[in-house]
C-alpha cells in the first residue's frame, strides 16, 4: 500500500477503486455462504451440498450466475428509470463505506478526519434506494415494504449515531484509525489499567453503546428480528417483490456488503479494529502488519456476522410499531444517557 501511495493521487485512487470493486463482491460471497450453511445446520439441514464439490462452497457463485441468466423484469406500472436505478444506489452506498474501513495500518481507502461520520452518513443513502425501489415498483406490497423500510431506517439512524457519539467522545477523534489507536492506548479515561499489559477495546467501557449500535445495525440492515421491510409472510418480499435477475442480485449483494461494512465499523469502533489488542503491530514491518491487521479485522467481523446469522435464524420478527417503540422509547434514551455518562467520566478524569 506504500507503493500505492507513492504513485500519485489519481493513479493511486484508480488503483484503489479497482481493488475495491474487485474485493467488495468477493467479501459478500463468504457471508452469503456462511448464511446458507449456518442457517441450514441450525435448522438441522445440510444446506448447499453439490455446487463446487463436497461442501457446496460454490453455491453463492452458482446463485449469482443464475441471477445473470434470468430475465430482467420491469413491471408495466413501474416508474422505469427510478426502478432500474434503485439497486445501484443501494449497492453504491454500501460500497462507498469501504473507503474509510481500515483493514490495516495503511490498508485504508482514505483516513478521513470525519471517518465515522462519513461512514454513517453515506450508508444512510441506501435508505433512499430502498424507498424509491418500493415506490417505483408499482406494487402495493412493494410500497408498504418501502415505506416500512424508510420509517425503520430513519428511526434507527438516531440510536446508531448516538451510540457512536460515546466512542467519539472517549477517543476524541472521528477518524477510524484514530479510534483504533485510542483503543490501543492501554488506558481507560486516562487511568492505566492492568499495568499496560492489555489494551481495552471500547466494547467494555462502551458496552451499552455497543449493544445499542448492534441492535440498530440489525434494524438498519433489515435483518431478523427487524426484517419487516421484506417480511416474507406478510409482504411477500417487500420492496424486492418485483425485482428479478441481475437487479435482484445487486440488491442481494448490497445487503450482504452492508452486513460486512456494518460489522467492520462495529469491529473498528468497539473491538479495536485491525489491532490484535494483545500485541503491538507497530513492531512488525509494513506488509506483515497490514496482513495480520486485515486477518484480525476479518476475524472480528466473522464473530459479529455469526452473531447476526445466529439471531436471524432463531428469532421471529417484531411488528412495525413495536420496532418504533424500541427505538424511540428505549434505545434513544439509553443512547443519550450513555453519552451523558461518558462525557461525565471524560470530564472528571
Amino acid at each position, binding site marked *: 500500500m506504500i507503493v500505492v501511495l507513492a504513485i500519485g493521487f489519481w493513479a493511486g485512487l484508480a488503483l484503489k477503486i479497482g481493488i475495491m470493486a474487485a474485493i467488495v463482491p468477493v467479501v459478500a460471497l463468504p457471508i452469503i455462504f456462511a448464511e446458507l450453511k449456518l442457517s441450514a*445446520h*441450525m435448522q*438441522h*439441514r445440510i444446506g448447499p*451440498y453439490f455446487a463446487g464439490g463436497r461442501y457446496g462452497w460454490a453455491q453463492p457463485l452458482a446463485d449469482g450466475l443464475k441471477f445473470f441468466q434470468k430475465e430482467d423484469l420491469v413491471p408495466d406500472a413501474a416508474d422505469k428509470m427510478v426502478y432500474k436505478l434503485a439497486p445501484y444506489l443501494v449497492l453504491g452506498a454500501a460500497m462507498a463505506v469501504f473507503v474509510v474501513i481500515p483493514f490495516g495500518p495503511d490498508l485504508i481507502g482514505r483516513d478521513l478526519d470525519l471517518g465515522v461520520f462519513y461512514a454513517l452518513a453515506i450508508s444512510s443513502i441506501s435508505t433512499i434506494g430502498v424507498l424509491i425501489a418500493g415506490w417505483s415498483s408499482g406494487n402495493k406490497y412493494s410500497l408498504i415494504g418501502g415505506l416500512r423500510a424508510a420509517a425503520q431506517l430513519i428511526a434507527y439512524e438516531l440510536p446508531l449515531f448516538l451510540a457512536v457519539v460515546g466512542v467519539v467522545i472517549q477517543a476524541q477523534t472521528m477518524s477510524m484509525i484514530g479510534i483504533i489507536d485510542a483503543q490501543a492506548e492501554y488506558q481507560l479515561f486516562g487511568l492505566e489499567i492492568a499495568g499496560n499489559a492489555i489494551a481495552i477495546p471500547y466494547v467494555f467501557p462502551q458496552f451499552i453503546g455497543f449493544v445499542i449500535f448492534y441492535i440498530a445495525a440489525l434494524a438498519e440492515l433489515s435483518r431478523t428480528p427487524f426484517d419487516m421491510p421484506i417480511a416474507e409472510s406478510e409482504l411477500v418480499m417487500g420492496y424486492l417483490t418485483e425485482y428479478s435477475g441481475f437487479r435482484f442480485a445487486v440488491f442481494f449483494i448490497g445487503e450482504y456488503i452492508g452486513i460486512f461494512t456494518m460489522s467492520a465499523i462495529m469491529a473498528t469502533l468497539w473491538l479495536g479494529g485491525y489491532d490484535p489488542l494483545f500485541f503491538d503491530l507497530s513492531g512488525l514491518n509494513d506488509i506483515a502488519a497490514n496482513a495480520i491487521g486485515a486477518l484480525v479485522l476479518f476475524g472480528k467481523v466473522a464473530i459479529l456476522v455469526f452473531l447476526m446469522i445466529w439471531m436471524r435464524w*432463531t*428469532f421471529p420478527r417484531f411488528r412495525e410499531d413495536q420496532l418504533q417503540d424500541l427505538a424511540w422509547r428505549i434505545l434513544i434514551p439509553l443512547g443519550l444517557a450513555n453519552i451523558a455518562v461518558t462525557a461525565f467520566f471524560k470530564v472528571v478524569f
Partner: protein
Amino acid sequence: MTTRNMIPGLAKGMWITLKTLFKRVPTVQYPLEKEIPVPRARGVIALDTEACTVCMLCSRECPDWCIYIEGHKEEQPPSKPGGRPRTRATLDRFDIDYALCMYCGICVEVCPFDALFWSPEFEYSEYGISEMLHDKDRLTDWLATVPDPPALES
C-alpha cells in the same frame, strides 16, 4: 411491549439453535442415498397377467376410472379328449393411467384373483403426462419389485 426480561427466553432459543448447529444432520441425500420404503408403501401397482381373468372389477371400482381393460374370449382345447371346448378370457390391454390414479388401493383390494399388487417403487416420473400411462408389459415388470408382506404384530 414486553422488553422486560428480554434475555432469558431469547437466550434459550439461541441455545437450542446452537445445539442443533452441532448435531448430526438427519437428511437423506436422495439421489445418492435412498430410504428403503416400507413394504406396505403404495408406490406403484404391479400386474400379474397370469392371474387376471379380465373380470373388470378393478376398473369398475376405481374411484376415478383410471384403469383401462380390454380382453376377448378365446376357445381353448378341451382339457380331456372328448370334453367340451372351454373359453378363456385373454387380456389384450391393461393400462393404468398414473396421471389420474390417486393411489387409494381399491383395485388391489377388490381383485378376487390376486392379480394386482402394491409395490413400493416410486421412481417412475416422466417428462410427458401421456407417458404416465403404464401398459400391460410395464405393469408386469413391476411384479418383481413386490416385497413380501411384513411380519405382523400379534
